[in-house]
């Protein structure tokens, strides 16, 4: 069976994380599961890049962490989007849409 996974292009992980926590605060595990589910298993987030990205985003003030209790009653670190993070998400999403549309246009050139 061919591996359906595609590695994330540089810089898109931050965008996906921001989008995922924009709906509701999530812990790292839920973020990686959510991205994988919503992308129909195409995108797989490795822990090795997920956690450094979370800490980087937190440092930039785009997400904020707090400890909470998970669905199965374990202590987990939840990340929530900040106001600055929402702005960043809007800007990045706009850039990404423009970029992917432009690339698609070039690739579909007859």
């Amino acid at each position: 069976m061919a591996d359906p996974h595609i590695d994330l292009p540089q810089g898109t992980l931050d965008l996906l994380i921001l989008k995922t926590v924009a709906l509701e605060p999530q812990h790292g595990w839920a973020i990686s599961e959510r991205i994988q589910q919503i992308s129909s298993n195409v995108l797989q987030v490795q822990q090795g890049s997920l956690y450094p990205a979370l800490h980087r985003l937190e440092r930039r003030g785009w997400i904020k962490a707090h400890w909470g209790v998970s669905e199965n009653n374990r202590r987990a670190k939840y990340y929530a989007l900040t106001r600055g993070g929402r702005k960043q998400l809007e800007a990045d999403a706009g850039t990404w849409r423009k970029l992917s549309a432009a690339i698609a246009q070039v690739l579909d050139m007859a």
Partner: protein
Amino acid sequence: MLTDLLYRLRSLFRRNAVEGELDEELRFHFNEQVEKFVRSGLDRAEAVRRARLAFGGVEQVKEECREARGVFTLETLLRDLGYALRMWRKNPGFALAAITAIGLGIGANTAMFTIFSRALSFDPGIDNPDRVVLFSPADAIASEERSWSGPVFQSLRSSTRSLAVIAAYRYTVVNVSDKAALPERFSCAQMTASAS
């Protein structure tokens, strides 16, 4: 900016707490992964083995998280300072030579700067030097500096409203002598008194 600084400082000074949290965070992820494998039908030992494989090097992930938190620059600085102090104590002669060399270098630079800044700047004795202008008749063709004639200067001086005070100068050559020596020629500038 402030968030960034606070975040870094917390990472640096509350290091044990931050490291403990990171540990707990990663362990939580690992346990969830194990549970997921168990739910999919693996026995626990196999699930743990798979989860370890999936997770990769925990230490490496931690190291990258530390780097992402930005503790590196501060930590490296402190470590470098510590190293410098240890080396001074170990090799005071070399330290002394280095400090002397740097001191002399800085001293020489400061001395040169002081001399040149004094030599190249002088006080023209004007209250508002930024409001002083030099104006002369323009010549569109030759674009060289021309002189005003005496009557034009007189009329400018009596009729101007744009300038507070107008004075004129001209270059000339004068002979200077006293009884003790032969006369000497000097080029000099003659100025009118400034009057509005």
